């Protein structure tokens, strides 16, 4: 892979920074920063509104990004690509709108390795709600869980049993703690065989590996721009058109309507029916630039680079005494995310002492409390890699971990 390090200004302004928190959020290449800046400087106006050249230019750029996203995940149509704030809003959109089609006792099948964003919105459908207009499933849907094995994989031994009565499967394609890559294509086939839909949380997978929605045959896919070199506040929901056509709007207001009377309104076509209000235009353009950048490097190359890092990293970690890395070994499909704990050292202390050495890792439950509970842990430290990380970064991390251990001996 070409040397992309100089493309990221953060490493010039923070010399010596070892950034190992890309699973939380990725750094931005100059091309993304420039795309947003150029848009504001040269082409800014609202979209889908003005009968003037500048608005048409802004609309062209915004819709151009939608086409870039469509191609990137190989969706059939741009009608299936909805811009939202991020993966979290994406899941909330689906829970709100598709959730209205669920009924009492319908089962939503999650996994124990889900991020809170793919747990909490579903709890709302399984919790009695006093609100008027609450979805029909309120107080009635049932959450069921695919267990996680000790080695950090989904336990699919009883998948046929687990799928009984299931209307929706919602699983991550890549765990943000374990790095496990789940076979969502297999789960999609299984789900469809019992008439269920499948939502894939692509927040971790889409930035790090090629993802093709037609190949996966998933019904829903969500991901966030900021984890894939793009700006914050922009993300994508992909929904199969045939399903989208059955869904009620998520938010209501301008842009999503066709015609408004005093007491009623009709809806705009897809995907605009699901994009109420002025969208994050600059964010979408920045995301388009991020995708162009990723494709220029090559998603296969990024995946291979990170496979080198995970093999190297696991080998380095394995010789450290008193350090445990969660998740599978390098022979399994997993990404370069290392959630670890050190005997006798609190994760916060690991994070702070590494920070003193200019190594940025995350410490905590990484928005996956049920998963930590499964492993009998409250929190872990987590180092996560991306295309700009190197084996040298892992060497610095390992030296840093030794220094943490020295502090407490």
């Amino acid at each position: 892979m070409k040397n992309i390090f100089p493309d990221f200004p953060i490493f010039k302004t923070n010399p010596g920074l070892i950034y190992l928190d890309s699973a939380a959020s990725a750094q931005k290449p100059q091309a993304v920063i420039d795309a947003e800046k150029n848009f504001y400087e040269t082409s800014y106006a609202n979209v889908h509104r003005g009968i003037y050249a500048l608005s048409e230019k802004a609309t062209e750029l915004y819709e151009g990004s939608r086409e870039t996203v469509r191609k990137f995940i190989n969706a059939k149509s741009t009608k299936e690509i909805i811009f939202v704030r991020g993966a979290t809003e994406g899941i909330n959109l689906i829970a709100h709108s598709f959730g209205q089609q669920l009924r009492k006792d319908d089962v939503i099948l999650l996994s124990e390795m889900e991020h809170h964003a793919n747990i909490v919105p579903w709890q709302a459908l399984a919790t009695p709600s006093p609100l008027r207009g609450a979805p029909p499933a309120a107080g009635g849907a049932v959450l069921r869980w695919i267990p996680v094995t000790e080695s950090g994989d989904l336990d699919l031994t009883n998948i046929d049993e687990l799928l009984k009565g299931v209307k929706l499967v919602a699983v991550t394609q890549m765990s943000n703690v374990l790095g496990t890559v789940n076979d969502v294509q297999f789960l999609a086939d299984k789900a469809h065989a019992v008439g269920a839909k499948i939502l894939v949380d692509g927040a971790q997978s889409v930035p790090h590996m090629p993802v093709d929605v037609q190949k996966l045959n998933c019904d829903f896919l969500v991901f966030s721009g900021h984890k894939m070199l793009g700006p914050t506040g922009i993300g994508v929901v992909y929904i199969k058109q045939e399903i989208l056509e059955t869904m009620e709007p998520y938010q209501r207001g301008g842009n999503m309507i066709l015609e408004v009377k005093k007491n009623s309104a009709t809806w705009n076509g897809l995907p605009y029916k699901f994009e109420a209000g002025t969208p994050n235009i600059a964010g979408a353009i920045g995301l388009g630039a991020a995708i162009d950048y990723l494709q220029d490097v090559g998603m296969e190359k990024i995946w291979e680079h990170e496979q080198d890092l995970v093999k190297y990293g696991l080998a380095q970690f394995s010789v450290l005494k008193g350090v445990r890395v969660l998740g599978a070994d390098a022979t399994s499909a997993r990404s370069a995310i290392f959630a670890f704990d050190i005997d006798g050292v609190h994760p916060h202390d690991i994070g702070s002492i590494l920070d003193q050495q200019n190594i940025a890792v995350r410490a905590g439950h990484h928005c996956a409390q049920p998963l930590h509970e499964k492993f009998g842990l409250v929190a872990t430290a987590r180092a996560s890699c991306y295309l700009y990380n190197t084996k040298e970064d892992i060497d610095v991390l390992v030296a840093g971990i030794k220094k943490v251990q020295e502090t407490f001996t």
Partner: protein
Amino acid sequence: MITNMYQENILDHYKHPRNFGDLPNAKFHAHAANPLCGDELDFFLEFNTDDKISNVKFNGRGCTITIASASMLSEKLRGMSRSDIEIFSNEDAIKLLGVPITPARLKCATLALETVQQAIGHH
């Protein structure tokens, strides 16, 4: 800014916490936790006839800053009145540690004080 929270006396209080243990008969007791990181503390307080703290013990688990601040606070508490404790601020608790505390660790540095104030308030 890179600062060193892990100075010798902080680590000493962490490794050898003072007044560590329980006072099962103490009238004033509270439990507080930080569910984000699993830190939890129990403080047990006894007051003498002058209404000053005569005995204090704490128990729990946590990071270096949580345990060191609990240990240091437990030493400071002896002889304090209830109103002394009420006006003891988060800033005072941080000052007691004597090291720069990064924003992410403020909750760790104040959990002990929160527990103690809860112990006198909830009785």
